[in-house]
């Protein structure tokens, strides 16, 4: 049950009403704070104009000319509609969910309208503009539809929506991958996926797969059966004892030696490596939550006649996961950024593509522009994830009870 979110930012205290008083109170209240303020302002004043001047004179053509490459890698250019369709699917589902779980209409419809305006005025080519506008319309329509259907039959509709999310995963995979011999969706193997697309695919697969695996490992580590407990503990400690980069190298280099008859795609190897790595950390996060659930809860569940699995699924896990939500989201954000490590095992995700672009003689020496762009893309996704999680925490009343 979602409670209305209390507004926290719009406080109209006298301090904010008078800027001078606010500055004096917050920036110059002690002699060392005054000193820090002056030093910080001086440093900013020295750096900001230079940065601005550089950004103005920088040759951003390297980014705009390679935009499609940076976003989609070597995905066949005549098949790009499939990536757009996948984006439309995901964004419409977001709209539907926001409507069903009573998102703020002003925020969602407003954001869709602003995005649509940007799509109309921005420097896009015809198909891209059409798809962007379609995506904005999908979000807005989904939101309204979600609201309407929830008002009509809430419990049923929310269940349908969860099912839709689950179905969307194989649908998007099919859309991206296709199959050999098809004229409608010809096969595009993972070796052709690249750029931001590959980054997101790796991150989403890693998150979706490592979440249940981590929960199982955490439960296994607390199991009463010694064999299971030892295996899970050994796995967790071994994986946490090595850096991700070495796991990725092992997956790329050792797997083909041990399995010479199977040609496993490089991308799949990276997915497996990232998932196995993330699951170990996930397990420790979840274990922390499990330890925080009072014993009385379990005893009460047993007293009500719930069996072991019911107790776990209905009483223990919801409380445990809720308690460690910030840690889990933090881990997912770092997983998103860790996908950039696959660039060193030869995969062309966002960073790998950036390296390739910089080796093009036309764009030699444009490192600053390209890497700044890559950093901005990572920031946008990481920041969205963390702000979404903050909203979820508030909705769940975390830290308030």
């Amino acid at each position, binding site marked *: 049950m979602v409670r209305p979110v209390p507004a926290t930012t719009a406080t109209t205290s006298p301090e904010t009403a008078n800027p001078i008083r606010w500055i004096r109170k917050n920036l110059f209240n002690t002699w060392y704070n005054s000193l820090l303020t002056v030093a910080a302002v001086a440093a900013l004043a020295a750096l900001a104009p230079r940065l601005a001047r550089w950004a103005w004179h920088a040759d951003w053509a390297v980014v705009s000319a390679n935009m499609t490459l940076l976003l989609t890698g070597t995905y066949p250019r005549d098949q790009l509609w499939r990536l757009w369709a996948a984006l439309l699917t995901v964004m419409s589902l977001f709209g539907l969910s926001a409507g069903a779980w009573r998102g703020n209409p002003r925020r969602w419809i407003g954001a869709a309208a602003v995005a649509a305006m940007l799509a109309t005025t921005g420097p896009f080519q015809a198909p891209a503009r059409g798809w962007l506008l379609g995506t904005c319309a999908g979000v807005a329509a989904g939101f309204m539809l979600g609201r309407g259907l929830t008002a009509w039959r809430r419990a049923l509709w929310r269940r349908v929506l969860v099912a839709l999310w689950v179905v969307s995963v194989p649908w998007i995979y099919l859309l991206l991958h296709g199959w050999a011999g098809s004229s409608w969706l010809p096969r595009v193997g993972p070796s052709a996926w690249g750029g931001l697309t590959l980054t997101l695919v790796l991150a989403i697969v890693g998150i979706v797969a490592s979440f249940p695996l981590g929960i199982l490992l955490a439960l296994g580590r607390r199991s009463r059966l010694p064999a299971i407990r030892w295996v899970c503990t050994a796995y967790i400690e071994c994986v946490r004892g090595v850096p991700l980069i070495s796991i990725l190298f092992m997956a790329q280099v050792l797997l083909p030696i041990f399995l010479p008859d199977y040609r496993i795609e490089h991308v799949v190897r990276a997915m497996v490596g990232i998932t196995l790595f993330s699951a170990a950390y996930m397990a420790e996060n979840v274990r922390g939550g499990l330890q925080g659930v009072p014993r009385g809860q379990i005893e009460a569940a047993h007293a009500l006649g719930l069996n072991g699995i019911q107790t776990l699924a209905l009483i223990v896990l919801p409380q445990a996961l809720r308690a460690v939500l910030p840690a889990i989201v933090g881990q997912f954000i770092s997983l998103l950024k860790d996908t950039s490590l696959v660039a060193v095992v*030869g995969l062309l995700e966002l960073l790998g593509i950036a390296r390739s672009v910089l*080796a093009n*003689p036309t764009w030699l020496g444009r490192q600053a522009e390209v890497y700044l762009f890559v950093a901005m893309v990572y920031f946008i996704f990481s920041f969205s994830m963390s702000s979404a999680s903050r909203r979820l925490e508030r909705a769940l009343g975390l830290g308030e009870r």
Partner: protein
Amino acid sequence: MAQRRVWLLVTVVVGTVLTLASTAALAQQSTLDVVRARGHLVCGVNNGLPGFGYLESDGSWSGFDIDYCRAVAAAVLGDPNAVEFVPLTAAERFIALQTGEIDVLIRNATWTLVRDTDLGLNFAPVTFFDGQGFMVPRDLGVTSLEDLAGASICVTSGTTTELNLADAFRARGLPFTPVVFEEIDTVYRAYEQGRCDAVTSDKSQLAGRRAIMADPEAHVILDETISKEPLAPVVRHGDDRWYDVVSWVVYATFFAEEKGITSQNVTTFQSPDPDVQRFLGQTGGLGAMLGLSNDWAIKVIQAVGNYAEIFDRNLGPLGLPRGLNRQWTDGGLLYAMPFR
């Protein structure tokens, strides 16, 4: 006692796995048939080396090594675009070849004895003789190593580059002052700021760095080379038919330049020279001996051009001099074996 038995078991298991792995790799048919059955070539490449391998803005591959992948595909399949490029890092490139993940590795790999024997690889003819060279400001008027007597020279520390530099100057009896840095970027920044008279590294790297300097025209790369870095396509040991195909594709690009055959004139080229006639498949049936069509060389030259065209297209923009990569008739090392 029990411990020894465990170790014995481990040794036997690991040994069996490795033996099975190697026999499985050996028992396969020729890569030539595999490629033809598959319909495309799988080529291991570098995805970020200026001039040699990189992605164009439209998502297609470009570069000197990339062109040789296309040349092999054109010879075998008649289609230079029937290539799947597999970007590989330096660490995984040879394993990818050994395990059969790729058909041929064309990724600035240096030909050495250890790789040729111990790693079970075969090197096709060298496509690019790289080696350590020197870059100097044009104003200095330096033309040879002897002119650099007493100069200060920027170099990365702790590399073979640093050792080669000392050896080369000692052998010539020239004094010099090394200016050593840890980071490659720092080396070139110091050079550009005039903190040393010259900078030394592999020539392909010098050219790449020169191209991104504030004023590339103000710097020249000396013709002299003081170390050997022969870069060549690599295939697996024990697959002679495939090795022959890759080797003769490389020779075809050399030969075409030697005889003045270009991508423009290859279809109309006429010559009384019997070597050329055999090369063009008009006589001799050389293609059939390689297991290819008789017009294979025409396909290669049509697709990527002769060696000079490949070099100028990819490495020309970097301002890389031909150096050792000239025809043997011009004092270089490119020497196509006779087409007969």
